[in-house]
């Protein structure tokens, strides 16, 4: 039967736009993964508890509110505090290129903006799962730089 990849797709903070998150969730489902969708307006600790209880190996964060530079690092920090160091985190939404480097430095392993093909996101999952030290609290500072 093999091991299934479980992915939590989450919407942190005050943001009601979830079309993007649903498209990603659907693409991951169609690629044969198990996707747990949290629903809207989650806090960082709610997201971390969901990842912990669902034993997800990936966490996808979606933000279109402009608060990503606050919310994404907060989630990463709480994941590390909870000992979930091996969880691989990626982000998406409206993230200006000038904000991205700081997010990569805090442990986000990929950022997908508008126009990204779902195939690219699936490719990222495929590549990242093979690297064994790219979790949010692990040493490798690799991040996805496109196909």
């Amino acid at each position, binding site marked *: 039967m093999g091991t299934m990849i479980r992915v939590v797709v989450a919407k942190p903070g005050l943001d009601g736009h979830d079309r993007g998150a649903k498209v990603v969730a659907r693409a991951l489902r169609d690629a044969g993964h*198990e996707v747990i969708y949290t629903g809207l307006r989650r806090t960082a600790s709610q997201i971390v508890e969901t990842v912990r209880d669902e034993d997800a190996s990936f966490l996808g964060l979606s933000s279109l509110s402009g608060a990503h530079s606050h919310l994404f690092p907060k989630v990463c920090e709480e994941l590390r505090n909870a*000992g979930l160091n091996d969880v691989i985190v990626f982000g998406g939404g409206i993230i200006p290129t000038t904000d991205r480097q700081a997010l990569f430095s805090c442990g986000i392993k990929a950022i997908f903006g508008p126009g990204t093909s779902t195939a690219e996101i699936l490719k990222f999952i495929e590549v990242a799962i093979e690297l064994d030290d790219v979790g949010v609290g692990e040493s490798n500072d690799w991040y996805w730089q496109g196909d």
Partner: protein
Amino acid sequence: MNADTVLAAKGGCRRSLARTISALENHTLNIDEALSIIGDDNSSKLQESHWETMAITGAPGVGKSCLVDKIISHWASQGKKIALLAVDPSSSRTGGALLGDRVRLSVVDDIMLKDMVYVRSIATRKSSSSVPAIVSDIVKLLVALGWDRVVIETVGAGQSEVRCAAIADRIVVVEGPARGDGIQAEKAGLLELADAVIVNKSDMAGARKHADEIKESFELGIGQSPPVILTSALTGDGCLMASDVLLNLQSTGRSSKARWRERLLSRLEQRILKNPQLDSLLSSLASGSIELDEALNKLNN
């Protein structure tokens, strides 16, 4: 699968609990090993007076998730440790699943209650029923780890999906208003096995009438009638009463043979799904190179 993880789960580490459940799902750990590490004797705990496992089942969209949220909040606030296994279907084509029951659960956000509640989304994977057989192993694990009650929210089920009977000590069927006329309540199937029926969405027209039709139907039968309760998970009406009734729910005992039949079928399905030859036999069947009976004989060997 590492024994330390199981021991950490026993010590209360939630992540280790989640990992142990994944190992059961992925068949990298079997339940007997896990129980021997925990130190549970794996004796069958099916007592008739006190339930450990309750299946909440019913058609898609009748409000199972919202209702379960209200009910387990109430139980947790009374000091019960509750585990919820929320089952959603896997795609039979790609094997993927979108598990969305958490969207409707607010109990996990309640700072006072969240340590009393463990929620896990389960995909049916290769199982064809509304509750995959592996859930019975997960239930055994949770009970051995000290969770007082395990609630299974099944995939939205139709008229005759009774496989949850294989796993649960008690079965609660959730209905909604406008689910057909009185004759629907007379039909055989899921309602026959129910230990309680909840008619949800009592804020909408037709709910009371439907509840009355179900009650009437039960009264025509022999044996003890299960309770029929009206609730509205939206307004909260009736939810407290439903929580109290369900917590102390007795089995109607109407159908113990039917339950054992479901357990037997479930065990058989699990055995077939675990067979390493399954994939190659499915390919041979799809290409027409063998017949169904032939494939079955090979699986039985």
